[in-house]
């Protein structure tokens, strides 16, 4: 416990800091709450506070085939992109952490490089190349661009996970005659399971979040959910968008609770 000073200046500073905390938390929470509440409006346009309460927009939203197919496409895309990035990223992170060869440092810099390039730039840079190889507007172009974005995030997360693993159990398995692959699969992989799963969830959410790249290379056939929502709210102003936004908020909050179970947020960064 800190030694608390009773001087008036210190007390004033403490009260001020506390106020800054509560105001900041309201600033953080209020917008999300507003979106959720706006989906229950009885009125015809999105407004806050809502004009009366009703769930009628949920019924209307259930019939919106365009949104539902975008949602489906995005979920499939998120699963496939996460799976590909996870396999490639795990092997890359392993060889970065465990390898002892020249060029290992360069590999880790190169693997993380896309993190420092804005998604707008990656999206536009993909445009001429995809046009040249004839993939523009196809799901393949989107898949490749998404893997490029997600891969470095996964590598970064897994480097941390693998570094924190104790290697002696895997060595023990090797001493008793297990092949390197078998020792890895039976011993290390389960130990790294939580970290891998957490990385997968972050990757999944990153794909659900991505609305920029599709604006460049998606064409008119491949419209993901965030892109559909983006173009809808840029042009229209009815609560259908709020309904789907609320569904997404509920889904991501549920994912967050799973993450909390996995990594335990109250221990985040704690070194005690």
């Amino acid at each position: 416990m800190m030694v608390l000073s009773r001087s008036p200046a210190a007390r004033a500073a403490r009260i001020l800091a506390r106020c800054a905390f509560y105001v900041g938390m309201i600033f953080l929470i209020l917008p999300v709450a507003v979106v959720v509440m706006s989906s229950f409006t009885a009125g015809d346009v999105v407004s806050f506070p809502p004009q009366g309460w009703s769930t009628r927009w949920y019924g209307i939203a259930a019939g919106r085939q365009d949104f539902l197919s975008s949602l489906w496409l995005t979920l499939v895309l998120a699963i496939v992109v996460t799976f590909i990035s996870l396999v490639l990223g795990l092997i890359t992170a392993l060889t970065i952490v465990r390898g002892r060869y020249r060029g290992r440092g360069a590999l880790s810099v190169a693997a993380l490089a896309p993190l420092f390039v804005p998604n707008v730039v990656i999206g536009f840079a993909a445009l001429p190349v995809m046009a040249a190889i004839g993939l523009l507007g196809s799901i393949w172009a989107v898949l490749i661009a998404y893997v490029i974005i997600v891969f470095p995030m996964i590598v970064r997360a897994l480097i941390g996970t693998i570094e924190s693993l104790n290697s002696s159990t895997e060595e023990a398995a090797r001493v008793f005659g297990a092949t390197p692959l078998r020792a890895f699969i039976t011993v290390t992989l389960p130990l790294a399971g939580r970290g891998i799963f957490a990385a997968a969830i972050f990757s999944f959410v990153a794909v659900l979040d991505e609305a920029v790249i599709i604006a460049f290379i998606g064409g008119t056939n491949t419209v993901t959910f965030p892109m559909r929502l983006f173009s809808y709210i840029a042009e229209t102003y009815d609560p259908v968008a709020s309904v789907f936004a609320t569904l997404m908020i509920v889904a991501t909050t549920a994912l967050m609770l799973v993450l909390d179970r996995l990594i335990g947020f109250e221990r985040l960064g704690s070194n005690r």
Partner: protein
Amino acid sequence: MSAVPVRGSRRPDLPFAASPAFALASLPVLAFFAVFIGWLAVISVFKPSVFAVYTANFTLENYIKVFTSRIYYEALLRSIWLSALSTVFTVLIAYPIAYHICRRAGHLKGAYIAIVASVFLVTFVIKIYAWQILLERAGLVDRLLQLLGLTQGPTRLIGTETGILIGLVYASLPYMILSLITAVEKVPRDVEHAAAVSGAPPLTVFRTVTLPLSMPGIVTGALFTFALNVAAFIVPALLGGGTITMAGLLIQRVSVGVGTAGGNWPLAAALSVVLLAISALFSLGLVRVFSSRRWRLAA
């Protein structure tokens, strides 16, 4: 990992995936990325063409246009200005939250972090959609401003730089808070305690111990905030009201947009390269300033 002798075996005694051959897994991703960025740099010095998007003739006119044509350099300057400003505001709002969560929240700590992480995970477009609702004429913010007597008639904040700034700050806030929580947690409480016992008032402890030692978190968060916001696309598209552009939005309009400016890939490429350079320069500058000796107190 140390080498393990394996009984009677000719297997190389390396752990799984330690061999450089496994680095090939990253090859498809890195190759595509390299081609994307490399080709971007190449076409930025090509001549724009009405009929074939570009012709392979060397020219610097795209770069000249970016720096001399008002619409482009204004968007670039606005991007730099708004993302620098949003970085400052984000730190100012995030620090008290992170500090309180780490040092004062007690048993509520886990719950607060869960709230921050939940907002972090909410889709970007939805976060900005929320501000579209809040900043509308007769929206919550407008009513609040009139109630406080700060504005007379009804005002619409969408289409103003203030509106864009709010969106930029809000979108990067959860990341900054999480980054600062990690940093403040790493500040040893013993050092704070020692300073306090030696007679330093709480504010002095904060200014001389906690703040400098948590600087790495501020730098990480600021790097992310600036890089994200300087290339913002969704925020100016939704909160800019169609009148206020930023560089990221302009790249999209110039490259795939319709109208007089659409379909000019070389110009959009030059804009992208300039944006990347600004982002890199800012990051290098930030890292340099904050790794100077003033902030590197003995840990």
